[in-house]
């Protein structure tokens, strides 16, 4: 039994479908990549799991099972309790995700107090341990700092510490290194992988960067137009991508080790074929 299972999830904004029969699963200890270009719906899947979809978006059918519990079947209050205890998010932009007017410490301990019902003092000690675990020097001092006093890499470490704080069994990382320099990105990716392995967490990693996928994921789902085109292991994906769109994405990604290779944009014919697939799906659903 996978820790997270999504079955035939459909979501719409007004009359327009944005997720089309999405199915995927993540085992405990597994890292799955969610890959696609902008507008493919990769962040929407993360938000659907965490129950943070924007108000205009409705889930029309399908199930999200978290640790065997059907989130769609619960009342909102129970759903929040289950999600809060079992899942967490590492967001993209470490500056907007932290409250600029509060010190860093309380922003980490909140989760421990709210979700696990810890005493504030115990939570403070645990937060310091967590900061130490994500290699932040002088945790006591950083706990009292405001976000603007810290660099982007430090802030992202704090968000990682905070995501792992309440020992969630699933973490959704939404482009967590896009805002960072490559050298810092490398450190942060290694840190996420290390923390994930140590805690045995299931990790759903949203990214548009195939390079990052090859470094951190074991399996991946390729998305286009809210539809999963390919669900495969990372080894198979890079060796022999099954879907023409996957192959086209790989061919469009530059590699500094292979400068002579011509960069091919995703061909129109591939896009048209995928769009035809999507239209056929919408007809079956009765949207057209």
């Amino acid at each position, binding site marked *: 039994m996978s820790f997270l299972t999504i079955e035939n999830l459909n979501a719409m904004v007004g009359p327009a479908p944005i997720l089309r029969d999405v199915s995927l699963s993540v085992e405990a200890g597994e890292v799955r990549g969610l890959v696609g270009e902008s507008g493919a719906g990769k962040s929407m899947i993360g938000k659907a799991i965490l129950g943070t979809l924007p108000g205009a978006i409705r889930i029309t059918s399908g199930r999200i099972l978290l640790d065997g519990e059907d989130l769609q079947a619960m009342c909102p209050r129970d759903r929040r309790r289950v999600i809060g205890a079992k899942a967490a998010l590492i967001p993209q932009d470490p500056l907007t995700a932290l409250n600029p007017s509060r010190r860093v410490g309380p922003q980490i301990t909140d989760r421990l107090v709210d979700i696990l019902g810890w005493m504030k003092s115990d939570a403070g000690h645990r937060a310091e341990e967590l900061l130490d675990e994500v290699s932040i020097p002088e945790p006591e001092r950083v706990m009292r700092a405001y976000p603007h006093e810290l660099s982007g890499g430090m802030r992202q470490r704090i968000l990682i510490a905070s995501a792992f704080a309440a020992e969630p069994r699933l973490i959704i990382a939404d482009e967590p290194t896009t805002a960072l320099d490559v050298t810092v990105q490398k450190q942060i990716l290694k840190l996420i992988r290390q923390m994930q392995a140590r805690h045995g967490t299931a990790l759903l990693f949203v990214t548009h960067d195939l390079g990052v996928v090859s470094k951190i994921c074991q399996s991946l789902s390729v998305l286009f137009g809210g539809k999963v085109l390919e669900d495969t292991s990372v080894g198979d994906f890079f060796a022999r991508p099954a879907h023409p769109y996957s192959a086209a994405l790989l061919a*469009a990604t530059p590699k500094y080790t292979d400068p002579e290779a011509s960069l091919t944009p995703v061909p129109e014919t591939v896009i048209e074929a995928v769009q035809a697939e999507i239209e056929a799906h919408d007809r079956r659903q009765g949207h057209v």
Partner: protein
Amino acid sequence: MSDAPIYEVENLHLSFPDMAHKPLFGPAPRIEILKGISLTIPRGDVVGIVGGSGSGKSTLGRAMIRLLEPDSGAIRFEGQDITHLGEDALRPLRRRFQMIFQDPMSSLNPRRTVGAIIAGPLRLQGFDRVSQRVDQALDHVGLPRAFRKRYPHELSGGQRQRVGIARAIATEPDFILADEIVSGLDVSSQAQVLNLLDQLVKELGLTLAFISHDLSVIRRLCRHTLVLYRGEVVEYRETAALFEAPQADYTRELLDAIPLPDLDQVWA
């Protein structure tokens, strides 16, 4: 034109006031961004400028096209010293060095049509046959002429960035500064824009400075690469040689940090 380099930069220093540490009275202390940068760009070259955030790559680019005035040092554009030229004296030169910006959504006026956006600098510079030149610019970047009537929000990210390129090449410049122009694009649009730039440089005989944090993109496009670290040049060499045998520790660190879409890459 002669074989003289299009740009010569000598010992360039530039600083900004640090308003966060300004005392109640008196001037704010200054933060030095560029710490003595020297470089020469030959005509027709494509130079990649890389470095981490805060390394001064955008500041250097903006000083070269004199959107910023340096504190000291010298910038010579085709032999002419433009380091401290006033705006009136710079105006006629502005036709000859243009810029393409990172985010086309904020650098294209949402209330003007594509045609009016491209025509803007042409009118300011007193060009004749403006309409015809707009069409030519659109042809060059591979957008249909009918796009003149459209507004930026009606275009995709890649198409918008082509409009930015069309506006820059419309005045027939000698030099173009492209500041992170593909970092907001999907890989497919990125590939299209890179191929387009490659082709334009050859067709129009442009000299291009291409600022990017992505070394794979630089490797693909640029003949020379300049690596900046905290306002200093750590390495400036032919791209192929630099990638094959990086001399500076920082360059090596940058190269090692790039995640290649390749499972065999050792990423220790």
